[in-house]
C-alpha cells in the first residue's frame, strides 16, 4: 500500500483517537506519582517532582506480593490440568465416530452457553461441604470444570483437522494409546495449546467473582480480590489507590507486551477453533 496524503490524514486521526483512548491511563499513572498536595492543585499535570512513595505503601497495604504468588499458583495449575485433561478428552472425541462420542461432544458444548450463575449457589454449597472453601485446590477444581467445555471445543476442532496416519504408525509399532498421544499427537497440538493456554490464563488470572466468594478472608486471595479490598479500604486516598492499581496491572501488561503477537492471535483465532 502506498503512503498517500489520505493515509497521512488517517494516521493523524488514528493517533489522536489513541491519545484520547489512553487518557484514563495517563490520569491514573500520573496520579500514582503525585503527593497529596499535587493531586489537589494540579490534577492533570505531569507529576513535578514525581514521588514514588505511594508504590511501596500500596505494595504493603494490598499485600500484592503474596497475592501475585496466589494468582500465579492457581492460574498455572488450572491451565496445566486443563491442557492435559482437555486435550486427552478431545483426542477421544475427535477420533471416534460413535454415537457416544458425538453425544459427549454436544454435552461438553452445552457448557459453553450455560451461564455459570445458574449453578453458582449449589456449587458454592458443594465446595463448602467438601471443605474446599479458601483452598487452592477448590479454585483449581472450579476453573478446570468451568473452562473445560471451551478447552475441549478448541482441541476437538484442531485434532479433527490433523491426519490420522501418525498415531496409527506409532500404535502399530507397539506404543500404547497414552504413549502415542504423549509422543506423537500432543506435540502436533502446539499451536492450539498456545491458544488454550493464553485464553485460559488471561481469564483465570483476571477472574474476580468466584475467588471473592471462595477465597475471601482465607489469606489465599488472588490479585483482583486483594485489589478490590484494598481500593474499598483506602477509597479516598487517590494516590495510594492509583499506585496499587498500577502495580497490580503491571505484571500481566508486561507479559502481554512481550508476547503481544501470540496473545492477539490467540484471542482473534481462538473462538473459531
Amino acid at each position, binding site marked *: 500500500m*502506498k*503512503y498517500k496524503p489520505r493515509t497521512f490524514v488517517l494516521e493523524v486521526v*488514528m*493517533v489522536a*483517537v*489513541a491519545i484520547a*483512548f489512553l487518557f*484514563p491511563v495517563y*490520569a491514573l499513572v500520573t496520579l500514582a506519582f503525585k503527593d497529596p498536595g499535587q493531586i489537589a492543585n494540579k*490534577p*492533570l499535570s505531569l507529576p513535578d517532582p514525581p514521588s514514588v512513595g505511594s508504590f511501596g505503601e500500596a505494595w504493603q497495604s494490598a499485600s500484592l506480593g503474596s497475592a501475585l504468588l496466589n494468582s500465579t499458583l492457581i492460574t498455572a495449575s488450572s491451565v496445566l490440568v486443563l491442557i492435559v485433561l*482437555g486435550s*486427552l*478428552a478431545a*483426542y477421544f*472425541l475427535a*477420533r*471416534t*465416530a*460413535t454415537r457416544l*462420542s458425538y453425544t*459427549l461432544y454436544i*454435552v461438553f458444548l452445552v*457448557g459453553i*452457553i*450455560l451461564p455459570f*450463575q*445458574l*449453578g*453458582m*449457589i*449449589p456449587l458454592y*454449597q*458443594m465446595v463448602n461441604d467438601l471443605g474446599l472453601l479458601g483452598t487452592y485446590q477448590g479454585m483449581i*477444581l472450579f476453573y478446570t470444570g468451568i473452562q*473445560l*467445555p471451551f478447552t475441549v471445543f478448541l482441541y476437538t476442532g484442531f485434532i*479433527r483437522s490433523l491426519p*490420522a*496416519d501418525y*498415531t*496409527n504408525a506409532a*500404535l502399530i509399532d507397539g506404543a500404547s*494409546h497414552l504413549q502415542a*498421544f504423549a509422543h506423537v499427537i500432543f506435540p502436533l497440538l502446539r499451536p492450539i495449546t498456545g491458544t488454550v493456554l493464553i485464553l485460559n490464563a488471561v481469564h483465570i*488470572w*483476571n477472574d474476580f467473582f468466584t475467588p471473592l466468594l471462595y477465597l475471601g478472608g482465607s489469606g489465599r486471595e488472588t490479585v*483482583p480480590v486483594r*485489589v*478490590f479490598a484494598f*481500593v474499598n479500604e483506602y477509597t479516598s486516598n487517590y494516590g495510594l489507590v492509583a499506585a496499587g*492499581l498500577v502495580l*497490580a496491572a503491571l505484571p*500481566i*501488561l508486561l507479559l*502481554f507486551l512481550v508476547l503481544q503477537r501470540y*496473545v492477539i492471535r490467540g*484471542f482473534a483465532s481462538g*473462538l*473459531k477453533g
Partner: protein
Amino acid sequence: MTVTAQAVRRDAVKAPRRRGGGIAPPWLFAVPALLIYALVVLYPAFSGAGSAFTDWSGVGAQRSFVGLDNFQQLFRDDQALGALRNTLLLTVAIVVVQNGIGLLLALGVHTGIKSRMVLRVIFFAPVVVSPVMVSFLWKYVYNPAPDAGLNAALGAIGLGGLRQDWLGNPSIALWSVAFTVIWQCAGYSMVIFLAGLEGVPAELHESAMVDGAGTVARFRHITWPLLAPAVTINLMLSTVGGLTLFTQIIAMTNGGPGYATDTLSTVLYKQAFVFGKFGYSTAVALVLAIFVAAVSFIQIGYLRSRETAA
C-alpha cells in the same frame, strides 16, 4: 486396512468406527474431563434450576416446593424488573457501540498507516487487564469533583458545562458503566474484525477498484459480506458478556444509586448472599440462563443463514 485390523486385534480393543480411518483412542481418555465437568458445571446447574422452584434459604437441606412462586415474585419485584430492564439496555448499548467502534478501529489499523502495529497493541491492551482494575480506573475518571478525572479534562478543553456526577446521577450511571465496558472490550472486537479483514483477498478490492467502485461500495459489497464470521463471533461474545455483566457493576456502583445500575447478575448475587433467598436467587439465574441460551440460538441460526447467503 488389514494392518489396522490386525493392530486392533493385537491391542484387544473393541474397534469403534473412527474418523479418517485408523484406531480409535479408548473412551477412558475422556473420563477425567467428563467427571470434573459434570461435578463443577452440570450437576450444580441442574440442581440450581431445580431449586428455583423451592423456598430454599441456602442453609441446610430444608426446602419445600413452591411451584412458580419465585417467578411470580420476580415479575412483581420492582428491583428485579428494573434489573431486567437495565440488563437489556446495557446489552444493547454494549453490543452496538463496542462492535461499531471495534469495526472502525479495525478498518483504521488495517491500512498502510505507519503506527498500525503500535495502535493494535494500545487498543487491545485493556482486554488483558482484570475488569476489577479497569472499573476502579474508570471510577477515578468518573470522580464527581469538578477538578479530577474526566471533569477536569472537560474543564481543560473548555467543555466545563458537560461536567457530571457520572456514577452518582441515576439517569446516566448505567451509560457510564456501559462506556467502561466498551473502552475495555472494543479492542477485543477489533482483533476479531481484523482477523476477518485479513481473510479478504486483496485481488477482490483491486479488481473492484479497476471497475471504478469507491471505498463505500467496496466495503458494502466485498468486505462486509466476507466479515460475516467475525460479525457472528463478535455479536455472540458481546451479547453474552452484556447479559452476564457483574464485576464492573459491583466494583463501580454496587447497583446504585438506588437500583439504577442493578443487573440480573447483581440482583441474584444480592438475593443469595445478602438476603439468603437462594431459591428466589436461582429463579433469577434461570431467567438469565434462558435469555443467554435463547440469544445464542437465535444468533447462531440467523448468522449461519447470513453466512451461507453471503
